[in-house]
Structure formats: structure tokens, C-alpha cells
């Protein structure tokens, strides 16, 4: 389970970007929904140990997220990933794998399988600088799976993909769900949440406005309508 307990992240100039955030995620696919700049990426960065909370705690199966042991359990795909351009996809997979202490000639088959899964196997020996945005997204996805993680944290994983690519990646996410992995998905695309998530969280201006089942949240209305209602209701209270 990924657990956030009264987490606040504040910057000297900006002030708090995430405020008193508490949540426990244990469902197979959790969609984290919010506008650009709502605090989704900050929450994800704190989960993978890239940022330290100003106060509060983030734990993964009870292990604080800043500890290296917690990172063995996760696979992380950052938003708009930047790679080492002069490496090939296979070399990059190997680098990521070796950082988990894995090595050996047999590992190559695993990288090939993962690259096949995300649909860039044909370009496995090409330098990453020749990759399109969609191919980079797919490679970012593949490297997140290299350690066979229990938890997969994906920051806007469907950005930059064409319609066929989006469909393929959603199928991959569904397959991973069947394998028993827990997926935490950041997105601002409502349709994706509706389609693939079991539960969702709505964050706005750093505050968690809702966390629970998608069906309960919608309550007969469209997700877009409910999302707007929730955000507007919060803003109306905040103005008062």
C-alpha cells in the first residue's frame, strides 16, 4: 500500500504546492486527476523519493519513500522523459537494470520482452536520439518495468502517443493489472481515468478534494461534469 500521511510540500518562493495530503492507495489502478500545476507530479516525485516532503510522511508498504529499500518495490516513469541520447534502447534498459543490482547475459531476453511489450522492439538497437516522442514514452514505460515492480508510478504515460499508441498502452496497463501489479497513474485526461482506473483521486491547488471509486464519484453524471463541479465547489468555498 502507498500511504500519504498529512503530507505538505512547500517552496520558499511559491509557498505550499501540496497541503495536508492524506491518502492510502491499494487498488489495482489508481488515477490521480488534476489540472496542470495542481500538484500531481509533486506528489509522485515525493512517492519515488525525488522530493522530500516539508512535513508528513510517504510510505510504500510501510517503508519511508526516501529509503532505497522502498525504491526496489517501484517502477517510475517520469513525465516527458529525457534519456541519454547516444545510448540505444537496449543499453538504456541494461543501465536501469544494473542499478537494481541485476546483471548477466540472460537479462537481455527480459529487455527484449519488455521492449516488445511496449512496441519498440524493432528499434531496440537504435540510438535514442532517433526516437519520436511516442517511442520515448514507450521506452520510459519499459524501463519502469525492468525490476518487475510491485508498484508502477506513471506520470502522464499517454502523453505524446497517437490514438493507436494510446490504445496499445492502455492494453499494456490492463495486462499489468492482471499480473497483480498496482498502478498509480497521473493524468489530466478524464477519459483515461474513466476507462482504466478502479479508483481516482482529485487534486486541486495542492489539496485532495476526493478519493474513492470512479463510479461513486460520477454518481450517474459524466466524469467531466463531476470533476468540474468538485473543482468549482472548492473554489467557491475558497473565495468565501
Amino acid at each position, binding site marked *: 500500500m502507498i500511504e500519504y500521511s498529512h503530507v505538505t510540500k512547500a*517552496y520558499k518562493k511559491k509557498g505550499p504546492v501540496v497541503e495536508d495530503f492524506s491518502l492510502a492507495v491499494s487498488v489495482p489502478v489508481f488515477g490521480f486527476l488534476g489540472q496542470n500545476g495542481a500538484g500531481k507530479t509533486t506528489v509522485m516525485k515525493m512517492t*519515488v*523519493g*525525488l*522530493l522530500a516532503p516539508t512535513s508528513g510522511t510517504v510510505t510504500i508498504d510501510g517503508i519511508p519513500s526516501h529509503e*532505497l*529499500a522502498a*525504491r*526496489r518495490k*517501484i517502477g*517510475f516513469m*517520469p513525465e516527458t*522523459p*529525457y*534519456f*541519454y541520447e*547516444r*545510448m540505444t534502447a537496449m*543499453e538504456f534498459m541494461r*543501465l*536501469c537494470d*544494473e*542499478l*537494481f*543490482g541485476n546483471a548477466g547475459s540472460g537479462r537481455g531476453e527480459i529487455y527484449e520482452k519488455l521492449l516488445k511489450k511496449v512496441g519498440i522492439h524493432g528499434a531496440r538497437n537504435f540510438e535514442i536520439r532517433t526516437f519520436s516522442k511516442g517511442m520515448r514514452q514507450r521506452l520510459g514505460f519499459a*524501463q519502469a518495468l525492468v*525490476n518487475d515492480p510491485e508498484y508502477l508510478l506513471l506520470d502522464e504515460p499517454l502523453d505524446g502517443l497517437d490514438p493507436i499508441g494510446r490504445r496499445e498502452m492502455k492494453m499494456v496497463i490492463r495486462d499489468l493489472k492482471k499480473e497483480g501489479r498496482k498502478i498509480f497513474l497521473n493524468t489530466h485526461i478524464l477519459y483515461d481515468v474513466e476507462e482504466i482506473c478502479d479508483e481516482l483521486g482529485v487534486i486541486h491547488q495542492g489539496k485532495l478534494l476526493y478519493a474513492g471509486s470512479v463510479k461513486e464519484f460520477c454518481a450517474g453524471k459524466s466524469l467531466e461534469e463531476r470533476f468540474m463541479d468538485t473543482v468549482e465547489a472548492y473554489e467557491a468555498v475558497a473565495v468565501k
Partner: protein
Amino acid sequence: MKNIFVIAKNTLKLEIRDKILYGILAFALGYIALTIFFGQLTLGELQMIKSFGLAGIYFFTAIIALFLGTTSFYKDVDRKTVYFLVSKPVSRSQFLIGKYFGLCLVLLVASIILGAAYFGIVMYEGGGFDVIGLLAIFMQFLEMCLFIAFAICVASFSTSLISIVFTSAVFFIGHVVSALLIDAKAIGISGLQYRLVQAIYYVFPNLEKFNVRDLAIHAVAMPFTSFLLALAYTAAYVALLLMTAIWVFDRKEI
């Protein structure tokens, strides 16, 4: 420790594919080849060949060190490639140390290539194997290791451009600090001014400790204690710089 090795190995692998590095190396090899011509101008004077050859290796490895030290680490952080690495079971200190050793390895490879060309020419000109020349190249390599640590340290809290300016300034100051202190004594500076000169002497690295090119040119052996002292000086200074860089990087919001 294993992660440091993995990052160092991959840094080496990446940097030696850089076309800019190839360009600098090609230029350097061309320059070293030209020393044969310089030797002929001075009627085959071997000292001239050694002088120009060692100075060439020094100059071009300094350019490589400045180029790598100020850009490689900074680029990983600025372009957020580091997200892939430190979201795995890798601490920021392991990343930084691995990066440092990887860049030192690139310099070692460059020094070996340029050194091989230099020794080839010295032997071709009938000078035999230049043992003290080898020591001079090694000392230059040590200086560049310190130089890279300085560049990474500055890049950890500033930008690549500031690191270039600051590291270049330190490179210059590092070569004049000992002369500065001697001159200050000779002309009788005292009080606050002398303390300021002393502060500069102790704060900035004394890079002249690594300059044994004159000894190599005149085939004079380097005292073993000076060699050991230079090794210890490098280790201590590099450790201090990297610890500072780690302290800054650990607190940096990336």
C-alpha cells in the same frame, strides 16, 4: 559501491561517443604530430619536442576536463535524466561520485591516447622511453581530476556557464597562488593584505604542485615524497569538493 561503478561505466561509455571529444582529441593528436616539425626547426632538439608535446597534452586535457566537468553532471540534472537514476535504489551521492569517476576515466583514456602519441614521437626521435614524461602526464591527469571535481562542485549549485567561468578562474588562480605568496613576502606586504594573500593561498588549490613538465624536459627525477604529497593533496581536495557537492545536491529540489 556497485551503483557507483555502473554509473561510472555508463558515463565513460556515453562521453566517449561525443563528437566534440573526438574533435578535441583529433586536434590534440595533430598538434602532437606537429612537434616533430618543431623539433626539426630547432635542429632535432629533443627537449623542444618534449616541451611542446607535454604542454600540448596538458592544454588539450584541460579543455576536455573543463568541457566534461562543467556540462556532463549539470546536463543530467537540468534535463532531468537523473530522474531515471535516482528513482531507483541509487542515492544522490552514488550518482554524483559515479559521474565523477566516469569523467575521470574519460580523461584517463584521453591521456593514454595522447600519451601514446607523445611517447611514439619521442622514441622515433631517438629519445627512448621517457619515464619522467610518463610521470608528468600522470601528474597532469591528477590535476585534471581535481579540476573536474571543482567543476562538478560549482555545477551542483549553479549553472553550466557559471561553472565554466568559475572553474577557469580557479584554474588560472591555482597556477599563481604559490608565486603570489612568495612575491607578497618578497615585497614586504604585511597586515590585512598579507592575510588576504594567505587566505587565497590556502583556499584555492595549488595546481603548481602537479607541474613536473620542466623536470621531464630536462630528465630530472621527481622526489618520491613530492609525488606522494601530490597524491595525498589530490585525494584530500577532491574528497572535500565532492563532499561539498553531495551536501548541496542532497538538498537540491530536482
